[in-house]
């Protein structure tokens, strides 16, 4: 891909309420995933793998956890002389005070327009982070260039039975164009003859000039409308090319889907197709020591990060970096994030433990596959009765 042929915007303003408490102090995009990644690593790696060097990050709030993870962008090869990473905080309209909102009318998209103008790129791709995939953006660009329509959007074909009612799906014409993106339960959308839906991955590619026009028009109208909604309107207004993505895919919209996505990459095929292809997934590198598995440990069917010290039993779980698992403890079907400590003799099942959680000895934390128990970041639990209150 020629230098600056394509710019990218990663939009972190995504619904987060149903992912609480995991999203209390981070956007969906910096949710830890898969043992050592954050959700934003997937779109960022797709961008890097396509040779895109000019990237705008739209953060909902202060963007502290975003900046902490991305730093200079070096880990994604994005600290180049030209282009690089540009982080724009405080873009969640639902969190902006009314007085401040007044001043934003006609100006909400000023920064984005400036970024795009300076990028001198021919095309721009807009992506979110809640649809985990490892997409070949070069192929997406070729697909777009071969067709006449101003917008290309991406879908994954999934079984009608796997679709949650409020999922966004593309309405496709018989010649494979998208005319709308609608909720799956909308009466205008029906699955195709194979009972498949075209699930929207909320990835959009268009010419940078067209995108600037769309943003300018939104500014002129005085619409305070999210970037994602603007993109959806663009698909509705134009005929959009629909590009099918066929690799690993998971959608993160609530606790259960987050849990299931982590469990699904424990399947070897999924693990390999997401993390072991030619298109590598990059993340912030850290300098951890090797994980030590003590004589008493028994770990199987799991992913595990470095820096850990494992004495207990672990089965079918995702264990992040620097996790300490004391003797006689048992972890099953769970997601244990970075820096968490599990006390001796404790039993954890169907649980999500956020970063730096401490679980005392001889406790039982048991959720169900439908409703995994969630312990928020940094919580310390030493009494069985505290578990009941979670």
């Amino acid at each position, binding site marked *: 891909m020629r230098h600056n042929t394509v710019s990218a915007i990663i939009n972190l303003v995504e619904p987060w309420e149903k992912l609480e408490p995991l999203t209390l102090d981070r956007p969906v995009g910096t949710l830890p995933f*898969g*043992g*050592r990644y954050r959700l934003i690593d997937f779109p960022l790696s797709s961008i890097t793998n396509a040779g895109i060097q000019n990237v705008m990050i739209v953060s909902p709030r202060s963007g502290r956890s975003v900046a902490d993870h991305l730093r200079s962008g070096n*880990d994604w090869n994005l600290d180049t002389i030209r282009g690089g990473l540009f982080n724009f905080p405080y873009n969640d309209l639902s969190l902006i005070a009314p007085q401040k909102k007044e001043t934003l009318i006609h100006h909400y998209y000023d920064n984005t327009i400036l970024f795009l103008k300076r990028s001198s790129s021919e095309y721009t791709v807009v992506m979110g982070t809640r649809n985990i995939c490892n997409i070949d953006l070069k192929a997406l660009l070729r697909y777009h260039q071969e067709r006449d329509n101003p917008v290309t959007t991406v879908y994954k074909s999934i079984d009608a039975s796997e679709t949650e009612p409020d999922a966004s799906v593309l309405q496709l014409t018989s010649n494979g164009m998208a005319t709308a993106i609608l909720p799956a339960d909308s009466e205008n959308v029906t699955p195709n003859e194979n009972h498949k839906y075209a699930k929207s991955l909320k990835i959009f590619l268009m010419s940078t000039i067209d995108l600037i026009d769309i943003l300018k028009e939104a500014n002129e109208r005085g619409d305070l409308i999210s970037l994602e909604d603007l993109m959806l309107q663009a698909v509705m207004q134009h005929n959009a090319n629909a590009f099918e993505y066929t690799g690993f895919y998971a959608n993160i919209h609530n606790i259960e889907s987050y849990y299931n996505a982590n469990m699904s990459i424990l399947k*070897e095929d999924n*693990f390999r197709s997401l*993390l*072991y292809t030619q298109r*590598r*997934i*990059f*993340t912030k*590198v*850290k*300098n951890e*020591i*090797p*994980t*030590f*598995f*003590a*004589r*008493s*440990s*028994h*770990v*199987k*069917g*799991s*992913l*595990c*990060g*470095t820096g850990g*010290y494992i004495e207990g039993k672990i089965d*079918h779980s995702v264990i992040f970096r620097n996790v300490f698992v004391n003797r006689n403890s048992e972890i099953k079907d769970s997601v244990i994030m970075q820096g968490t400590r599990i006390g001796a003799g404790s039993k954890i099942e169907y649980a999500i433990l956020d970063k730096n959680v401490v679980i005392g000895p001889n406790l039982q934390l048991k959720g169900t596959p439908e409703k995994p128990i969630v312990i928020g970041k940094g919580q310390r639990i030493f009494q069985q009765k505290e578990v009941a209150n979670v």
Partner: protein
Amino acid sequence: MLAIILAGGQGSRLGKLTKSTAKPAVPFGGRYRIIDFTLSNCANSGISTVGVITQYQPLELNAHIGNGSSWGLDDQMGGVTVLQPFSSTEGEKFFEGTAHAIYQNIEYIDQQNPKYLLVLSGDHIYKMDYRAMLEYHKAKKASLTVGVIPVSTEEAKRFGMMNTDETDRIIEFEEKPAHPKSNKASMGIYIFNWETLRNYLTTSFSTNKKLEDFGKNVIPMYLANNESAYAYSFEGYWRDVGTIKSLWQANMEFLSPYNSLNIGDHNWRINSKAQVLPPMYLTPTSNINNSMVVDSCYVAGEVDHSILSQRVSVGEGSKVVDSMIMPGATIGKNVVIDHALVGEEAVIGDDAVVKGTVDDIAVVGYGEVLGVKKS
């Protein structure tokens, strides 16, 4: 203080493991290379300018060190410079010995204009604060300070031994003595007053060219000329990993959570080139005990008292015991690996047996392919 790391050793005693890599670049402890310990010690000691002198197979070492950013040594003022032999108008600058290597890089050292020159080896496993040694060097008003470590009489026979008086001043130096008079073995760590050393080296190489090696020539010369040379005693964990046996042994010690090297100490981190790799994947049939495993390993078999480095895979039904497996090695199904060092990118086919003993460690070479049927 400028640090020079002598990373030139061909490491012929490591045989197949160093066929295409310099000894300091040999993998160690799962996710390190031997030179990481010296480089991290420099960075942790606040030394921001480090020259790494190399001679044989520099590719891997160059790729590993890069701009030094992994150790925080990508300083605006100093940083890491990899110094290699080259052919100049006066002839080719290959190195005949440790002191000769310093002499051949005299322009680089002069450029840094250091008061003190710290000369280090790139092939030892230890943690040490060189600042304390420099304080000692200054306090003793020494011209040369040599780092020494106590060793047993038996071990002393393979080291350079320093015999000192009661003030720790070196009065005699013996290379590999049959009957050692002291237990102070040279660690190959020297602090020189650069001006003094520079004079000796330039005089020697413009006349008799005798100062080729620090141990063989320079230290005896210093003693003969009554320079104030002192021994600085170090008491922590230190291992020379120059042989197959000692490399295996040090890896097995590293594996112990009770190792006094204390790799997990956040106040003295040992850094290495960080790579972005997926987390380790342990299948439902895996069983790992008393072992160290790192990123991007794939384990379907059994691992007992062993170290697996990055990108190692162990197939179903295989058993790895008392061994160290270097990065990228692929171990097939139903393989037995026992008391072995398996080199980088080695491929071991199904049903193979690689079995050594404590006194005769089995070695699979760098990129070696064992027992894989050609299809």
